[in-house]
């Protein structure tokens, strides 16, 4: 391989590494969770409100108004379905379908409001953990 090609490849890799955002595990987890939630919401809106047969092999644009009823329930009101794109004319569809959708379950948590719990627990050393387990 020519030297220039090797250098170009190295430069490209360096560019990619610099451009990749440095995310913490917690941030990645939240982003993954949000992506999953949005995809799930979209699936609910589309599958329950759009005639998939009618739009087969087409790209369909959907605009819906959602209201979160509880942590895992939404009221969905589809405002527009189109193959041309969503027009922003502010009109309201009075005959819109309203459904209730279950999105996700949430575990109960204990909430605090004090100095003692303001920082998260320290990360335990994995070596120390193993040591404790072997005792």
């Amino acid at each position, binding site marked *: 391989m020519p030297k220039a090609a090797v250098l170009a490849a190295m430069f490209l890799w360096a560019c990619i590494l610099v451009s990749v955002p440095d995310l*913490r595990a917690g*941030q990645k987890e939240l982003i993954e969770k949000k*992506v999953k939630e949005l995809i799930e919401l979209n699936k609910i809106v589309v599958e329950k409100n759009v005639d998939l047969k009618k739009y087969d092999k087409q790209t369909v644009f959907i*605009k819906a108004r*959602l209201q979160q009823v509880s942590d895992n329930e939404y009221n969905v009101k589809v405002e527009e379905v189109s193959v041309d794109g969503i027009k922003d004319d502010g009109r309201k569809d009075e005959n819109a379908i309203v459904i209730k959708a279950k999105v996700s379950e949430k575990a109960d948590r204990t909430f605090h409001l004090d100095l003692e719990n303001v920082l998260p627990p320290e990360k335990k050393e994995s070596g120390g953990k193993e040591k404790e387990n072997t005792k």
Partner: protein
Amino acid sequence: MRIAAAIFLGFAFACGLAAQDQQASPAAKKLNSINCAKVLAERNIVETVYGVKIRFTEEVNNILEGSFQGNVETKTGKRTIKGIEFEPVKYDPAKDIAQATATLKLSNIADIVDKDKFNIAKFPDKVIRRTAFATSSPDKAAKIAAIRAAEIDAYKNLYKKIGGFTLESNTKVENFVLKSESVKASVIGALMGAEFVGFSWEGEGDDAIATVKLRINAKELSEMIGEKLIDFDKEFIEAEGQGAQKVSAAPKRKNEDGKQAVKTDVIEGNINITP
């Protein structure tokens, strides 16, 4: 979320970094943290009384790859407020974190609030209480900022319950199966009357996620503004938000003694000023 976290991390740094960089004494760090916590608690009171403006978009551009872009912005306008009092401030010298709780009796602002819009005379004894934490230490600031980011996320989620939000998608249907391409959720609105219930952490250390719970007393707020908020049968509307810690900047190089190397423009040495 990342932008919000960055903004508040920046604010927390602004509160504390100057003192840190100048190797502030423990007393100066304590004062700095306490004063910051008080200011933040006051801001929280303003957010509850006058409301907070929220603008958010969450977008997945390529669903198969899961590329995500989320933005939440909050703003509190310039507001006049008076009569805020503080409960005794707590300070943890080991962690360098201050906790301030501000209180405001609604009757104290009766003369500066638009009485046509807000019937606060109905609640003469109502006291608003908001708590805030602050630090002068950069290593803790990311964690405090994650709590604030979670609080902003909770504001947004609370609004989604009260005002709803818009979902727009661009979806390809192939053989009657969804091949979604992009989906975007958005909100622009203002929310007032939110109370802070508390926070919790999931996970450990720098990867831990903060969760904040906020609530609105729907019954009380409805009576105050004279209209029904939403078709909601319970007294409180609650919502949770989550925030992650921002990756902090690379630590400063340490010198051979293990102490932080501080860059100064001062040339160190003996100066003989005697004749």
